[in-house]
């Protein structure tokens, strides 16, 4: 109660739109360590995605950032101030929940105005601001509608408007797109990125979907079993995965054993040895003991018949993917790769040959 006016005055001064930072966050539930020494920063206007499979600790991390949970170790800071133990009602963050958590007994407008009412904003100003916020998310005139009458996409926009109208110091979004059907989801990605970008505060969102992360985020923190596997731009994670685990999560490529030659790598399949241009991870040793290259469907080519120095294999699956056809080819030595091809003339059980393109291929260690 007492804190609400304070939060408001801070919000209005708008001065400290600072960096949101998590430093060495650890959270245990009994014997289980849900979050293990996680650190990252989100700058003003930056969009950061926390990516991981379920159980990777991404939601717990988000809840700690929001103040719904307190870490056993580590600090959360905003603009340099320690807010680790500040409860959510005094953080002044905007949060969009996975199922939106819209108040079912209120109209769209009342939902959006709720945070303003909590800040003691008078009724007229509340209404004006709520309408403006709804208009910003493309929902002009929807203020009187009951929540139940909204579609999933509209509910998502209302949730976003409700989080934005309080002029939050940071935005936190829990799986913001997971409840939308695929078509809507793709359209919403662009909208969401545009709207978050405009607010100019640190935005942190959780997703299990790497395509959402790629489409929206400036940077990605990839989590597994509570630890950070890699933190970087989508391009960095895709092109220079830090480890085999990162490579297997990001970008759907075959991970094939290779011999690290420093500037290149040798891959031998079925006795056919090929030397590939590689891209090494940033902090990798000069020579890796056990090395792998990541072969993505668009870094290989396939032809019917026997090619010179090509890997021989058999098509086990053929999937039409719009402009291209993706063939799953079983090579020798237990290696199976997906190959994208513009030609559609190969079929299941056809013998084909697969050759690497120019690369470079990401090189990772076990």
């Amino acid at each position, binding site marked *: *109660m007492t804190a*609400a006016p304070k*939060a408001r005055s801070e919000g209005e001064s708008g001065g400290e739109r600072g960096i949101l930072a998590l430093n060495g966050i650890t959270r245990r539930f009994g014997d289980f360590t849900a979050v293990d020494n996680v650190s990252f920063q989100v700058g003003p206007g930056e969009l950061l995605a926390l990516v991981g499979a379920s159980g990777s600790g991404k939601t717990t991390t988000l809840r700690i950032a*929001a*103040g*719904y*949970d*307190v870490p056993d170790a580590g600090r959360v800071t905003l603009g340099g101030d320690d807010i680790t*133990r500040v*409860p*959510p*009602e*005094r*953080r*002044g*963050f*905007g*949060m969009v*929940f*996975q*199922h939106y*958590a*819209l*108040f*079912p*007994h209120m109209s769209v407008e009342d939902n959006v105005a*709720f*945070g303003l*009412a*909590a*800040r003691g904003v008078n009724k007229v100003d509340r209404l004006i601001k709520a309408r403006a916020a709804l208009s910003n998310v493309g929902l002009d005139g929807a203020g009187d509608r009951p929540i139940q009458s909204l579609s999933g996409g509209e509910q998502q926009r209302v949730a976003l408007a*409700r989080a934005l109208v*309080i002029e939050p110091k940071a935005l936190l979004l829990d799986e913001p797109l997971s409840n939308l059907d695929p078509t809507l989801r793709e359209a919403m990605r662009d909208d969401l990125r545009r709207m978050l970008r405009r607010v100019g505060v640190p935005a942190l969102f959780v997703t299990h979907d790497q395509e959402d992360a790629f489409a929206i985020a400036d940077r990605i923190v990839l989590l597994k079993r509570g630890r950070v596997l890699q933190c970087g731009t989508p391009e960095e994670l895709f092109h220079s995965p830090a480890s085999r685990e990162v490579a297997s999560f990001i970008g759907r490529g075959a991970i094939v054993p290779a011999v690290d030659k420093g500037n290149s790598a040798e891959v031998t399949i079925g006795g056919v040895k090929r030397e590939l241009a590689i891209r090494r991870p940033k902090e990798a040793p000069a020579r890796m003991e056990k090395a792998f290259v990541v072969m993505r469907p668009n870094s290989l080519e396939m032809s019917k018949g026997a090619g010179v120095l090509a890997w021989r294999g058999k098509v086990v699956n053929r999937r039409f993917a719009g402009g291209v056809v993706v063939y799953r080819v079983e090579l020798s030595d237990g290696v199976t790769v997906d190959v994208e091809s513009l030609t559609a003339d190969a079929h299941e059980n056809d013998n084909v040959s697969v050759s690497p393109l120019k690369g470079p291929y990401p090189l990772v260690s076990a």
Partner: protein
Amino acid sequence: MSVRTSQTRQSWVIAFPVIALLVWAVIYPNAAVIAGSFEDGLGHWREFWASPADHEALTTSIVISVASVFASLAIGVPLAFLLGRFEFPGRRVLRAVATLPAALPPLVGVIAFLFLYGESGVVTRVVQRALGMSHAPWQLRGVGAIVFVHAYTMYVYVFLFVSAGLERFDASLDEAASGLGASTWDRLRRVTIPLLMPAVAGSALLVFMNALGSFSAPYVFGGGLRVLSTQILNSKTNGAMGLAYVETTVLALSAVAGLALFRWLDRKRKYTLASKGGRARRQISSRRVQMLTTIAAVIIVVALVLPHLMVILVSFARDGSWTTQVLPPEYTFENYRRLFSEAELWRPITNSVSMALIATAANLVVCFMAAYLIVFRKFAGRRLLELLVALPWAIPATAIALGLAATFNRNDPLTGRVLLVGTFWILPLAYFIRDTPLVASAVESSLRQMDASLEDAARGLGASWLMTMRRVIIPAARPGLVAGGLLAAVAAIGEFVASVVLYTHANRPISMEILAQLRALAFGTAAAYSVLLILLVLLMTLAARSFEERLA
């Protein structure tokens, strides 16, 4: 102070008064009864075991409860199948009146049966005259009579549970079974019945607990028959409190044993019926079967409506005029006029209404707090709280009442005793305790339907705890609060079992006045009170419904 520990601290701050109140009102009196039964060492227990009357009471109580379960199942299950699975002329009327007995306050149902099937009841006299007999063809007393009344009022639980089970029952399950080659009988035996067992077991338990604690039917029809609940009142009236404590303890233990037995029988169930369900009712094709069904439906409808009609009819009968005739010979509005004009007769009505309102208001506040903590807070006191709000359900009302009588009979602040016996407040307290499980579970279920992140969302938007409660949690719990409040008010306004142990002349509720008028053979006045009680229940139901509709 971290958020986590401050949350836990806040939980305890809210929980402490609730837990303290429930321990004081529920645990303490019952502990006092158990302790009281040992006040003379094992003396009172020996007295109990040596008393043939108490032996009879214990066995009769259990026999009546078990018989009531079977009788209710025998009516409720076939009726649920008939109405749930088949289409026939008269189905809608039958469905509409099938739950009518539940709308009769316990004592009113008993009187209605007295007017209909008692020695000088209408049906009895009609049969007697038709057969030209010199005396009544049957007597409405003893175990048979009690089970008869119980079956009429309690089959509704079975009917409602099994109907709900049938509704959730997915037609595709039956279709799958027949697709796999199962015959009709096989399907019933292997698929339908096992899947309905949870509903059957749940309702059987409810009937058992109600029958075990039932007081009005044994009290009015028992004749010389003894059951535990009436025996307790007897001992108390005779001043043998020690023995009354032992009898109360035995009654409560029987209830707990019954509960444990049902839990054990139902232990294997690990599945829930969660499907969209829905299936078309089958039209009965054979003309003859259709006719028979309709005739049966008419008979059932008449049997179900008759008690209500009878009470209404008798409420217009001039007191003292109805002696040997089949129907009351003289009719008048006098009974109602007196109810509203004579202060002494009006008193029980204001008593019942005000006591029910007080108890319900207290139930709403306390049960909402308890349900909120149980659903949303993880803290060490949660299990205790769950147990405390559910406990009164397992304790028969007579035992609850005797516990209150034994505990709040003097002022002794050091031991937490307050003199309530003989005052107005003892009955609202008793009603509050009896209705706590009902209200708490109604509120709990509506809070469980609420998305748990709504509370987080409100806090994240800067709302204080108070604002979150007022604007988010309470509106979300509203359907449960309205439904629970209605159930509590309906139960409290017609309450008889605890009232008969604890009432005084000044705060006598309607039920006690009905009994007094009955004893004075003022059948018309007793019936007028009963009709008024039914109208009050109806009025509250309509009020709750319109309140819900206006807000929704």
